[in-house]
């Protein structure tokens, strides 16, 4: 904890860009590690992962004592927690929420369905594959549903990602909502009457 609670101002590369920005970024990332705010979106889950995610803010597991807080709006959040396979209906909404989160944003995919589609892997109304087919994902937590301990472990792993920063800065760029024609390609051809 001592390591986290102090500023580490060494190794800042001041030669590139604005040195003040580099310093502010370091301070921001320090603050973020100490208190990541998360937002939850259910993109087609069975509620199993949702109730296990909700469990971690209740007395037995209480992650709020560690600074993790569930935010009400994407604009206040650092971390997007996605549960469930992505349905065609909620895909646009997921992208919209992802776009609304300020940079840098981090994504935690929770549960088998978010990882790979799970039991819903070949349903006609789901994106084939996991959440990472739609938005970039930083940490994957497997399980059907993952235990609260696993969710907390996933959050700890996410702190490493936040600490080290994203390796590829382009990942932080907002994903554009696809055009109508692209969306139609995703849907299966309609049944003939």
């Amino acid at each position, binding site marked *: 904890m001592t390591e986290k609670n102090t500023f580490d101002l060494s190794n800042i590369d001041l030669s590139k860009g604005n040195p003040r920005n580099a310093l502010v970024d370091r301070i921001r990332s320090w603050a973020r590690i100490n208190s990541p705010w998360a937002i939850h979106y259910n993109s087609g889950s069975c509620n199993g992962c949702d109730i296990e995610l909700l469990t971690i803010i*209740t*007395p037995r597991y209480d992650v709020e004592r560690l600074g993790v807080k569930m935010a009400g709006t994407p604009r206040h959040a650092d971390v997007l927690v996605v549960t469930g396979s992505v349905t065609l*209906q909620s895909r646009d909404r997921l992208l919209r*929420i992802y776009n609304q989160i300020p940079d840098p944003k981090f994504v935690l995919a929770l549960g088998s369905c978010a990882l790979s589609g799970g*039991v819903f892997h070949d349903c006609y109304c789901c994106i084939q594959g996991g959440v990472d087919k739609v938005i970039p994902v930083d940490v994957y937590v497997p399980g059907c549903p993952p235990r609260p301990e696993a969710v907390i472990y996933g959050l700890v792993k996410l702190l490493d990602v936040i600490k080290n920063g994203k390796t590829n800065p382009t990942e932080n760029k907002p994903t554009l909502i696809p055009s109508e024609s692209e969306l139609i390609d995703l849907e299966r051809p309609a049944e003939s009457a």
Partner: protein
Amino acid sequence: MSDINQTTGAALQKKKYIVPIGPQHPALKEPGHFEFTVEGEIVVDASIRLGYVHRGVEKAAESRNWTQVLYLVERVCGICSHSHGTAFIQCAEKLAGVELPPRAKAVRCIAGEIERLHSHLLWLGVAAHEGGFDALFMYSWRDREIVMDILENFFGNRVNYSVNIPGGVKEDITQEFIDGISPDLDYLEERMKFYLDLINTDVTFRMRTVNIGKISYDESASLGATGPTARASGIQRDIRVDRPYDGYDLFPITLVTDDRGDLNARFIVRIKECLKSIEYIRHVMAHIPEGELTTKMPRKIPAGEYMASVEAPRGELFYFVRSNGTEMPDRVKIRTASLCNWGTIVSSVAKGHRLADMPMILAGIDPCFSCNDRMVKINFGNRNPEIWTWDQLRKYGNNFYK
């Protein structure tokens, strides 16, 4: 000029304001979109747009074998997964002509009641949270962890515990388990009595719930409410009593009803049901019949149709299964309790209440969006597929079953 201003002013006054909520909203744990038309603080109209978590489970069930479908339907809803599994596997067992051993029936019963405990405690917390009573949310979720421990010790998983297998159950109730669960049940009973007392006496809580979201007996009956929502309006409707399935024929259970029909009654009915469940689990464990846990189940289910209903924590859960004699079901139709209950709040209860009461009224029916999102598609030749008259429906039904 002044005339124009006056007319536009009057038009603006007449124009109602629509408050959109969702699909992502702090008050919603699951995606759903609501539009409340308000006049000042008062809601005059409400509409829902569901379907964000429609995954196509019914269609997917047609491309998996019977055992795989069992695990698929358990994931229709993670909260009442045992009910979904039981309803589906009942259909398969009845079609195959398999009679369950009594011990397996009793284990299914116990699992169902533990699930009800966990679901009602979860709901109690969420509903209190929607009413701004976060202390009760934390209390009830702390106690819910005891139920989750029981589930984990018993079935090996906290959620989606899959106690059913085709032709029986996979876990046995041992003496060790009975000894382990008894102190937990005693503690839960004590807590439930505390919650019941709290709901009846806490002044703030009563102000938020008494006479709020009232549904009369007639309204509730005509709109087809099920489960605790119906029982809170005095309707004597419970599948466990009306059409006893799996273990409820061996061990009968009694109904809990309340005739006031408001939010407070829904809280009371659910908490009393929890007390009843605790009593019932004790009774079944004390009288658990000896015998096998499973019977042999064929891989291919003979052709036929069967309908089964199960009393899930939220109300009547209905399954229709048609088999064509292969390893996969031909059709699985699911009708869940939440969808029946949506009609009650949207068409009658929501109107005339303050916007601030909406979260609690919505939570009052214990909505489960992932249960809800079934698709209805109607094809009827060249006619307008949107509107069907009763005669057309009848004719279509008669032709279908000819």
